[in-house]
């Protein structure tokens, strides 16, 4: 079954390039501390606003210090692998002389983390909601799905922006609320508004599954609703859930970029692709544009999101041949 699924997936146009891109992005993000790149927030005013070029430079104490603070194990491994060598300026530098290639690689970590964590939140809420609604009495099901319908009409985006902005603007911004907390807040917020479609799709599938013969048989044998949900229905939902996970991640990442762009997401000196794109756009108004600051973050976002979308579509088609379009 799984082998044939993979074959069907591979047969969809675009799925192999998409998988390759995603694997590369994920690997690069994971290996960020080990790569021979300057530290992402080490400023070198002498090298400010340089267009892309390739040059080996010295790995300075500044870089080492940064890496040791954020990633001690990585600092040691990197030293062992590349010694004092460092490839700088691959994607140019920003107006403070920070290395864009390095910032992109480190930004991938945050962007992917937020994307996956928020999707996880959305999945937990959406799948439980859909499962419970699908297995409940007609009346309960109706009420729960009516709530989802109503929630679709709420402009959550604005509510979330309102909350995050208020939290940021208040005096608490200077006191408590460290970086990670805000990240957590962000993916809980994004996740909490992205579960509706998942709930609807899961509930639809549960409704058709609960009428299937083996579920009726299990019930006749005295299985409780909880047991039916766990061992008979949930396993049959995995495919569907994976498809919608793949399609939710890019939406969520886009939302993160959007929030960061508005200055409401990840906070500098933390880097995410949204922050980088936003910084790039800010330099556009200055005299003499630094095109690489706009193009590379945009490219990173587009490639990753495009691959995720393509993979999600291909997975959906591979899982359900009836849906095959063209």
């Amino acid at each position, binding site marked *: 079954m799984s082998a044939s699924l993979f074959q069907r997936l591979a047969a969809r146009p675009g799925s192999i390039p998409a998988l390759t891109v995603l694997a590369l992005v994920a690997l690069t993000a994971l290996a960020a501390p080990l790569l021979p790149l300057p530290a992402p927030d080490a400023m070198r005013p002498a090298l400010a606003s340089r267009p892309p070029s390739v040059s080996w430079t010295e790995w300075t104490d500044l870089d080492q210090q940064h890496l040791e603070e954020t990633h001690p194990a990585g600092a040691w491994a990197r030293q062992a692998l590349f010694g004092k060598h460092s490839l700088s300026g691959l994607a140019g530098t920003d107006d403070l002389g920070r290395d864009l290639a390095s910032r992109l690689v480190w930004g991938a970590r945050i962007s992917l983390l937020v994307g996956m964590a928020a999707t996880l939140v959305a999945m937990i809420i959406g799948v439980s909601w859909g499962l419970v609604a699908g297995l409940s009495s007609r009346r309960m099901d109706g009420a729960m799905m009516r709530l989802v319908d109503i929630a679709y009409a709420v402009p959550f985006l*604005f509510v979330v922006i309102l909350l995050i902005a208020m939290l940021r603007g208040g005096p608490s911004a200077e006191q408590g609320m460290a970086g990670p907390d805000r990240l957590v807040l962000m993916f809980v917020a994004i996740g909490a508004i992205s579960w509706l479609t998942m709930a609807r799709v899961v509930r639809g599938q549960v409704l058709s599954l609960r009428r299937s013969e083996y579920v009726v048989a299990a019930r006749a044998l005295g299985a409780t609703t909880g047991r039916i949900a766990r061992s008979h229905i949930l396993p049959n939902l995995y495919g569907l859930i994976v498809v919608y996970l793949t399609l939710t991640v890019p*939406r969520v990442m886009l939302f993160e970029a959007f929030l960061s762009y508005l200055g409401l997401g990840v906070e500098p000196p933390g880097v995410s692709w949204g922050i980088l794109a936003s910084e790039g756009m800010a330099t556009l108004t200055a005299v003499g544009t630094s095109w690489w600051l706009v193009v590379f973050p945009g490219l990173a976002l587009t490639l990753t999101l495009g691959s995720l979308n393509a993979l999600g579509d291909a997975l959906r088609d591979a899982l359900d041949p009836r849906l095959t379009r063209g």
Partner: protein
Amino acid sequence: MIRFLARRLLASLVVLAVVVTTCFFLMRLMPGGPFDLEQSPDPVIRANLLAAYDLDAPMHEQFARYVEGLLRRGDLGPSLRYRDYDVSEILAESLPVSLVLGGSALVLALVFGLGAGALAAARRGSAIDTAIMSLAGLGLALPSFVVAGVLVLLFAFHWQLFPVVGFGSPAQLVLPAVSLAMPFAATIARLFRAGLLEVLAEDWIRTARAKGRSPLAVLWIHAARPASIPVVSYLGPAIAGVLSGSLVIESIFAIPGVGTHFVESALNADYNLALGVVIVYTVLLTVANLAVDLAYNLIDPRMDDGLGGGAADEAVPRRGVAAP
């Protein structure tokens, strides 16, 4: 039909009430107030300011007064940031700007999306089809601010065809409207192509062809209407997406619309302005969704008229949260 409308309206009112109540209290429960950034540390001045804006009363009394003003006089209260301005005055100035931008983006998205989708479906499997669909895939993945950045780089700096920022002349509208429209045009193209392909396989299309109808007439006269149902059902989320997308686009192109006010008012803890903007957006969204559902029934009278919408809904999220 009347029952359907009444039920939808009732649901919309519930949504509006919930949104207003939640935002009203959450904003006030958040740490930080509208006058925390004020220069003067004098507690007397602060107390006077709070009293002047009726912010020293218990929260439920403030709420009661706000709701009363809203329902009786349509009063959204004074802005806490822009002295001597009422929220309704600020909205009256900025809303038309946002509507012009959003409206042009929506029209662009429809024209290009439907055109490209029809072309791809008519030339199914050809190089044109592949090219259009790849482009649509790209458009879907491109955040609107990246599109905006690239467009500005090319058309404002490199070729200097359009102005970089500002609002007022049609030339200034081109770049922002195009960047805003891009992801929606891409989605519409995909939906319309899929819809057309499905419809073109039907029997009555073969009948029309057998009658001797030209391929173009078959496409636009016979197939387009049923094939546009997924597109119509996407318009609700698309409108929501255009509204929220304009938050970013307005700030990039320095357009004095509602979006810039919204982010700023939230950052400044300008309770009344922020709530006013949320109310306006919720109403716009509700009206748009209602219009979409009506259009739905007009296009295909068989559609069930329950709150849940038709089956075409399932594939399309009815909301455009991450669309910008």
